[in-house]
């Protein structure tokens, strides 16, 4: 059957499934809308968290980035999984015990101040908007690549679907669609991976496959190190970044993960405290399936690519080469007119440009898998993008309707009124996200690092100290968050956008990249919080009792 039919079937079936779930799980109260009525089973919540967490970037781009970076790519693998340890041990159980709806709720109550709440709302909105624009763009790109509609139509279809189940079902609808989306995306990711692993190494488990040897008896990683040396790249298994920078980026991503509001809020949806711990464990397990497979795909496709193209005649390239060349993801210019493809680290002689996304997207074609696998991949990429977008949407709408409206502007608003406000806010957020998806601001890629840096430098210290210290007061927490966020924004604007005089790599403070600077801003936040708290009055008895209470099981 024709590929286009398969894709329409896969996408159509998965979308009808999401809509069906949305109708079945409508939200009737604000509790349903914000935290799915606090009745989600820990394993279901684990799956939903995994889908929420793994975005279009994890699904499409990560394996490719690792494939080009080798060891350097490890920062994403460790950084985007290690944060769950922090969540499970330090944050999730206590926030669940606290038993409110949002992250600003906790910050506002624990630090008995609407200023603290406003700072938290501001950070939650920036972080979520940064992220969601990228997701809608991802939806548009997948549609345009696989279904041959233009990006705008793609974004509009994606908006329509998310709007339908997020506005109707709130967190309840989102949770159960995310469970379905996890199943779709993990199946779509694993089928080609297992197939390719078997093809290259004879081992069906990709995690073991990439430590085995190919048909020629040489270990894949050794072969790849050799190929990299020949072509002038740094060795695959050793990195090009400084150890301090790798350390800081990994730390910033881990702490940022633990501080992201759309991840934290998922732990408010389970029945009890022990379930919050359990669902963090399940979530990481479900994420680990994809995250331990991605580096294997990276190695297979990297070896495959170099062996297929390096010093081979352009005319003899397989069919997929032409196809991806027309999409602009692959580019070849014959600089020395010898008809062969020179692929090297030296930009003056290199003739091939490869977009990182191709490593996952073109995999099934390179491995000559049947058409239905390619269709599955399209549905999987859409599931990854939509599930993350929906989770973020909920954070935005609850920040507006609950934290701003109910808690600050209109405390007397009725339950029904708040629910309507939440739905209106969600609708507005979808439209804004769609606008950014169609007209992507140039800074989307740069600001993803900003989102993690901001979460690490604002929320994490405030929440952590709010639980583990009784003496931290509002003055300390507010000034800490403000210093952390300001420092992070300053560094980012200076080195990513050229404000405040700009600067290049050699001007980085201590040689730390903007991606890793979140760690430093976080340390500054901790330091300021401690110093100011020790010089201002301690929190009242009530607050100290609140802290004692959330520590009880």
């Amino acid at each position, binding site marked *: 059957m024709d590929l286009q039919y398969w894709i329409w079937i896969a996408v159509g079936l998965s979308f009808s499934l999401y809509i069906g779930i949305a109708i079945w799980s409508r939200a009737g109260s604000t509790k349903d809308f914000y935290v799915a009525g606090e009745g989600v089973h820990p394993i279901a919540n684990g799956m939903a968290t995994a889908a929420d967490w793994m975005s279009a970037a994890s699904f499409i781009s990560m394996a490719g980035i*690792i494939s080009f970076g080798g*060891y350097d*790519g*490890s920062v994403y*693998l*460790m950084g985007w*999984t*290690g944060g*769950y*340890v*922090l969540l*499970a*041990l*330090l944050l999730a*159980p206590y926030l669940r015990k606290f038993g409110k709806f949002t992250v600003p709720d906790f910050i506002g109550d624990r630090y008995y101040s609407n200023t603290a709440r406003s700072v938290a709302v501001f950070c939650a909105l920036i972080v979520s908007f940064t992220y969601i624009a990228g997701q809608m763009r991802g939806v548009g790109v997948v549609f345009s690549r696989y279904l041959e509609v233009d990006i705008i139509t793609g974004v509009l279809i994606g908006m329509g679907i998310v709007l339908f189940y997020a506005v109707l079902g709130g967190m309840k609808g989102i949770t159960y669609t995310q469970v379905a989306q996890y199943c779709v995306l993990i199946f779509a990711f694993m089928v080609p991976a297992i197939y390719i692993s078997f093809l290259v190494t004879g081992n069906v488990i990709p*995690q073991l496959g*990439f*430590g*085995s*040897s190919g048909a020629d008896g040489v*270990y*894949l*990683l*050794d072969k790849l190190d050799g190929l990299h040396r020949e072509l002038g790249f740094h060795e695959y*298994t*050793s990195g090009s970044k400084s*150890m301090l920078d*790798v*350390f800081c980026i*990994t*730390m910033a991503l*881990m702490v940022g993960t633990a501080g992201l509001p759309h991840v934290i809020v998922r732990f408010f949806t389970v029945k009890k405290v*022990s379930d919050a*711990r*359990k669902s*963090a*464990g399940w979530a*990481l*397990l479900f994420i*680990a399936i994809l*995250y*331990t497979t991605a*580096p294997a795909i990276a190695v297979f496709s990297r070896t495959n690519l170099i062996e297929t193209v390096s010093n081979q005649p352009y005319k003899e390239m397989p069919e997929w080469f032409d196809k991806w060349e027309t999409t602009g993801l692959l580019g070849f210019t014959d600089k020395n007119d010898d008809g062969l493809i020179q692929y090297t680290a030296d930009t003056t002689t290199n003739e091939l440009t490869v977009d990182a996304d191709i490593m996952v997207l073109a995999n099934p074609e390179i491995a000559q898998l049947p058409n239905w696998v390619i269709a599955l991949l399209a549905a999987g990429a859409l599931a990854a993008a939509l599930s993350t977008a929906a989770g973020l949407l909920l954070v935005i709408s609850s920040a507006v309707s609950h934290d701003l409206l109910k808690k600050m502007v209109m405390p007397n608003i009725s339950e029904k009124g708040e629910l309507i406000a939440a739905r209106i806010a969600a609708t507005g957020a979808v439209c804004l996200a769609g606008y950014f998806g169609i007209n992507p601001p140039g800074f989307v890629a740069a600001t993803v690092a900003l989102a993690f840096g901001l979460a690490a430098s604002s929320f994490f210290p405030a929440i952590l100290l709010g639980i583990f210290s009784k003496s931290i007061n509002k003055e300390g927490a507010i000034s800490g968050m403000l210093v952390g966020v300001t420092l992070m924004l300053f560094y980012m604007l200076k080195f990513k956008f050229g404000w405040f005089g700009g600067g290049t790599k050699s001007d980085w403070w201590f040689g730390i990249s903007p991606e890793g600077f979140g760690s430093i801003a976080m340390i500054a936040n901790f330091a300021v919080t401690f110093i100011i708290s020790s010089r201002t009055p301690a929190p009242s008895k009530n607050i100290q009792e609140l802290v004692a209470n959330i*520590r*009880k*099981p």
Partner: protein
Amino acid sequence: MKNTYWKKNIRYITILLSLWFIVSFGCGILFVEQLNTIQIGGFKLGFWFAQQGSIFGFVAIIFTYIYLMNKLDQTQNK
């Protein structure tokens, strides 16, 4: 009684977070070069920790904590 519960919890967290640091920052970043001199199968050990081992470690750490805390919670209920 409540106090011993919290103290035990803090002790579990300290031990498990040390392990968290060792498998990722220790084996995967700080001592990666030393570990890379050891090769097991096709993997250099430091590289394996950075791209696989640390993640398996994280999963094991969380499930250990779940087990320990569930046991601790039970002693509280008696």
